[in-house]
């Protein structure tokens, strides 16, 4: 049995930039528990000789030649942006951090 605390859900919500109400914290904590339990069941059947799998296709080394392909125009690139200025994407001010 996994046991996700309300605090952990709140922390995850903050990392994911999701506004979660107090009530939802309890709901999601319960639901996440169920999901983790379900995933843990897979672990029970995986024997030691089965390596952890992240990809469903048995491929490696898929590479592209280092050749330039056409980019979008500035207009195309900015066409979906809610706001643009001086050929750049305009975003609300960034708080609490400096690049």
């Amino acid at each position, binding site marked *: 049995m996994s046991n996700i605390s309300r605090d952990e859900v709140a922390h995850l919500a903050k*990392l994911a*930039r999701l506004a979660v109400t107090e009530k939802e914290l309890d709901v999601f904590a319960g639901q996440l528990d169920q999901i983790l339990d379900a995933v843990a069941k897979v672990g029970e059947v995986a024997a030691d000789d089965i390596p952890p799998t*992240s*990809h469903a*296709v048995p*491929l*490696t*080394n*898929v*590479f*592209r*030649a*280092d*050749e*330039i*392909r*056409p*980019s*979008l*125009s*500035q207009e195309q*690139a*900015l066409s*979906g942006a809610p706001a643009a*200025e*001086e*050929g*750049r*994407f*305009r*975003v*609300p*001010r*960034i708080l*609490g*951090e*400096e*690049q």
Partner: protein
Amino acid sequence: MTAVVDLMDYAEVVERYDPVLGLEVHVELSTKTKMFCGCPNLFGGEPNTHVCPTCLGLPGALPVVNGRAVESAIRIGLALNCEIAEWCRFARKNYFYPDMPKNFQTSQYDEPIAFNGHLDVVLDDGEVVRVDIERAHMEEDTGKSLHVGGATGRIHGAEHSLLDYNRAGVPLIEIVTKPIVGMGERAPEVARAYVAALRDLLRAMDVSDVRMDQGSLRCDANVSLMPKGTSEFGTRTETKNVNSLRSVERAVRYEMTRQAAVLASGGTVTQETRHFQEADGSTSAGRTKETAEDYRYFPEPDLVPIAPSREWVEELRATIPELPWERRKRIQAEWNLTDEELRDLVNTGAADLVAATVDAGAEPGEARSWWVQYLTQQANTRDVELADLAITPVHVARVIELVKSGELTNKLAREVVQGVLAGEGEPDEVVANRGLKVVSDDSALLTAVDEALAAQPDVAEKIRGGKVQAAGAIVGAVMKATKGQADAKRVRELILERVGA
């Protein structure tokens, strides 16, 4: 806005504390295209013109790995004496920040392509320090933000920010050292020497422009202190924004004096990112570091694993060119340099440049003189590293060739070099565009000589009377009239011929 910060005297710092360094260097590869898409990998450009659905993170776009970038990563790993992973994956590093349009950075987490290496670093006095390399992994660069509003274009007080994603997705290799301990008072110097050695290595391999001023080589310096006689590492800070070799040294030194003052007054060092301030060499607090868990790394589902065969790795090993330290040994022998002479060449950053100039066909003495004298002066005036001057060894070799063939005088050659440094193109283009060829056509010179003699009949008379040294005034006038493009020796001959002296 800078509050007064307590700093401990450096001598006292190293008496009471042992510094521990960890250096993270980000290198932008000079591939033609980005890491996961075919957009051009170019510095600058009109904003948002080197972008596509993949590097903008638009829904449905799929990344494909640039094979050349993987080759470069493996070659860098090999040159740093690393082991190369038999199998490794990319991972998503999740965070929300507008410089990453995807809201995650494609990086590598616990499976770097190269690990467990070392780099031998030569200090100014010749002492060699071995710096152990923890790992070198592949990732992608972020976009660039411009903060608008606020007084200084900085984030504080800014009303909004503007994003250019031309740099987003540019291939990056992050090279991380193991903790560097036991350096004592030389820690700042070791940090600078390590970054310099790494830069020289990467330049020799031709995998990156390694321009610190343009951000294609960037260093984050982790610094912590432990009281003498203890062995448990203290809390570290990570100083970012360190854009020159000199700044690397200053940043480490500043953090040592700042942290020592905090510790000595009974305080604790906060684990945080700090920003280096070029103006006064100080650092200022940035964000408190997220933990690795907060990035919720997971294997990148859109990219399959990389499994470099041992044959491929050996093929790549064979492509590694003569490395800086091998080259230095060779030039010392070939040019008969003493240890001190070689060290001077290396310390001014000239050794590899001179060697490359010689490789491009120049005579060693000429090549040395250009780099060590004139170009070193130029670098100093511009406050940049010698190697970051906008002139290449091939350019310098060409200028030397033009002087040797008599097409340029030394004075004109310096003008050509000025033109190249000013971004006017290759030496031959500068010669053509500025019209700098030596005037070797005697008829053109004779006209100038006649005019000068006519303008100063008294001088002409003196020369005629045997005062040959008076010809200097006429030579000067001719040189002025030809804007210095005449061969002074030939001018003198023509004057004497003309007055019949």
